[in-house]
């Protein structure tokens, strides 16, 4: 049984994912997520005028290196009206693993990760008030907080909140791959 589960849990190659969403395109909205207490929530009900969708992990050392930075941003920008939807899409983790820090939802069968084309933890999307993707990418440009030069996610939020163009709109960074279930 363990072997069968391990085979089932093997991740798919990138070809099995949706291509990532282009900037300005509508974000996926029609899917459900599961809270740490087991209750279900429609993703659409969690969104606000500006929404951060964050793909996170409790086991990924890169995501953990960003934990304090994510908590600080969550606190600062929640106060500014930004909604955060933290999603754990890893098939080998539960939503409860990080739920004491900020609310984390389980993404059953990594459906949201597939719809968004997310590959990595941590990976972020910023959606505006018409559900358009305004930013996709990394939290910032260095796992080591002392070497950060570009605060991609924070800059994007500041731009969207003040009605300015986002720059950069698209960033990339090394991280852990999302541990997907295999779709046959």
């Amino acid at each position, binding site marked *: 049984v363990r072997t069968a589960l391990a085979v089932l849990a093997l991740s798919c*190659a*990138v070809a099995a994912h949706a291509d990532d969403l282009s900037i300005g395109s509508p974000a996926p909205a029609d899917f459900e997520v599961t809270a740490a207490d087991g209750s279900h929530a429609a993703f659409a009900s969690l969104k606000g005028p500006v929404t951060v969708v964050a793909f996170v992990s409790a086991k990924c050392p890169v995501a953990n290196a960003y934990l304090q930075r994510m908590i600080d941003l969550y606190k600062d920008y929640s106060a500014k009206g930004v909604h955060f939807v933290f999603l754990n899409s890893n098939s080998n983790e539960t939503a409860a693993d990080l739920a004491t820090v900020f609310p984390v939802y389980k993404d059953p069968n990594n459906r949201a990760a597939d719809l968004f084309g997310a590959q990595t933890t941590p990976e972020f999307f910023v959606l505006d008030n018409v559900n358009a993707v305004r930013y996709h990418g990394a939290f910032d440009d260095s796992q080591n907080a002392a070497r950060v030069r570009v605060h991609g996610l924070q800059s994007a939020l500041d731009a969207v909140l003040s009605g300015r163009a986002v720059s950069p709109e698209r960033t990339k960074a090394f*991280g852990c*791959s999302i*541990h*997907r279930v295999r779709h046959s």
Partner: protein
Amino acid sequence: MKFLFLLALPLAAQSFTPVDEAGYQKLVQSQKGSVVVIDFWATYCKPCRAEMPQLVKLEAKLHAKGMRVVTVSADEPEAMAAAKKFLAEAGAAALPAYVKRPKDDDKFIDAIDPKWQGALPALFIYDRGGKKVRSFIGETAIADIEAALQKLL
């Protein structure tokens, strides 16, 4: 003097060559004539560590047919001692070892594969002409990698 030389030898055998966008292209070109697996890994990446000994075995199996494995560590400078130690323990010390050191990770990742977000493990296969023919992002069964290679050998 001879003693000092012997002391330096293992360190030299496990050194990492820093690579940026231009260096990566040179690396690919230098492997022309072989079917090459370029394996991006990091010490923090558990599935990368599990995959490494399997790649070493696969390289040994297919070496005579012209298959080569090159490793590129995505580790930060603080982790390089651990990276060297890991490669030795995984039996991979003899493989060409590079480390990513671009000015900007973002542009480096995009230059290697526009569809790659930077997720590890990531493994790219180049044919004998130096053309990228397959990208495996995330955990991949070694049998799938071998099957892709066999088509090129």
